[in-house]
């Protein structure tokens, strides 16, 4: 039975249990996003868009893979903090996340 492919979803992750912690405001590629304390950057970002980064060589979209801090595929940029994994980084109030090299990276 060959099924017709559907359009890719606008969001990747589907929340099935509520986060009850306080709201956390972050900015993802310049867009305001509201998350909850306890959420990872990965689930906050993939709750609103369908990828985390572009591969440096191929330009392919990537959205993470192992989800446990081993494959390093969910790598994002932060303002004023080391580049890092979205899946093991908890959201913080005022955090600025970039899925592309941030403007002003180079002096």
């Amino acid at each position, binding site marked *: *039975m060959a099924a017709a*492919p559907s359009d890719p979803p606008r969001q990747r992750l589907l929340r099935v249990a509520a986060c009850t912690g306080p709201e956390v405001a972050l900015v993802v590629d310049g867009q305001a996003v509201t998350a909850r304390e306890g959420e990872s950057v990965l*689930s906050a970002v993939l709750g609103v868009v369908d990828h985390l980064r572009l591969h440096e060589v191929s330009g392919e979209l990537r959205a993470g*893979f192992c989800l446990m801090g081993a494959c390093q595929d969910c790598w994002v940029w932060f303002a004023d903090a080391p580049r890092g994994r979205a899946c093991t980084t908890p959201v913080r109030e005022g955090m600025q996340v970039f899925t592309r090299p941030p403007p002003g990276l180079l002096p």
Partner: protein
Amino acid sequence: MTRIVVVGAGPAGVAAATLLVERGADVTLIEERAQPGGQVWRAPAPGLALDMDRLLRGDSEGFRRFHAGFAVLRPRIDWRPETLVWNVHGGTVQIVAGGAQQALPYDALLLATGATDRIAPIPGWTLPGVFALGGAQAVLKDQGCLIGREVVFCGSSPLLFLAAVQYARFGAAVTVLDTTPLGAKISAVPGLAASAPRQLAKGIGLMAALRRQGRPMHLGVTLLGFEGSGGVTGVRWRDARGVERVTACDAVAYGHGLRPESQLAEIAGASLRFDRLRRFHAPEADALGRCGNGLYVAGDGAAIGGAEAAEVSGRLAAMALLADRGESVEFGALPERLARLRRFQDGLARAFAWPHAQVAALADGVTVCRCEQITAGEVRAVLAPQLGAAEVNRMKAATRCGMGRCQGRYCGHAAAEITAAALGRADAPLDRLRAQPPVKPLPIASALVEDDWP
């Protein structure tokens, strides 16, 4: 006073730390994540209203017991969550915590670093929406999220059925595509039944539950690729009778069992041995977990065994450590129990096989190394017994396959199969990519040293 450093707060590390503390030892327990539990007893993030009974059913008792035990242990140890061990050198573990590097000296080191999914590269495996099988479970357990609405669980692993059942409990439409044929599973049953009948029954129960719920489930399939552009939209596969099919989906959970996270053990000085049944390398240790020179390994990072074996091996490694320091210990029936649990895992490795021949024959255009974006064809192009790459580390030097951020965790097994097959050595023990520090990316900003340069 003797300082014992335990790395990894899953069932093995916590069992080891508990026993050591009970015997009066000074224990530092280091965990990369914020909370203990490892993968199996991974806890919901703070504030996440996840119904663990609904998720874990019969296993929720084990989950509660583990976390209650840890609550008792925690005030008795030097607990270091959110701490990465990036290197082991000269009797110290090198850590990064709170954004700063530090060296912790140890007298004995017990590594319980767990396992990650073993992945067979396949067309489309880097598409957004394709996740490792263990990851699909992890994001549900600690984030309360599903990787998609219509999820194909594929590859070959006992976790395929468990994860699919868990996803179904939370409303996902699941399909299971297992690449190992039914025949291989049936012939593994007597061995499984002899070593751990309860676990075998549990596994069969999971398959039966999916069947009862009418979830599509196919054994002995050949996975042909994940399809979509910008995100996965379907899985192309061939059934056991040779009919090609496509299953539409918005997410894929993919894996071929587990592989030990053995990098730290290797860097700390452990030899590695090739496991012919599973076709990977694991730290060389005696039956109790001794690697020599004050180094011990336990849990899935020592030998894939599952949660119960991890707990038992953690206690055994802790006892061996105490015995080596001149204390009297009673091993009792634990070594035999661990041996039985690991025999069960040998049966599972046959019932859920690593598709090595298919990996070795991977089409040239398929990405093997997802960090550096290196294809099977690029790997083969540099291989030659003379003046080419004659083993996998020389292949890495020539291609960059395995040089990326993950340090070969996700391409290394496939790269070794492709290399061995191309050099006509598929039957010999495989080569492996040597581990190098840092075990995970190390922030430059973490280097807060006094240095008078210039």
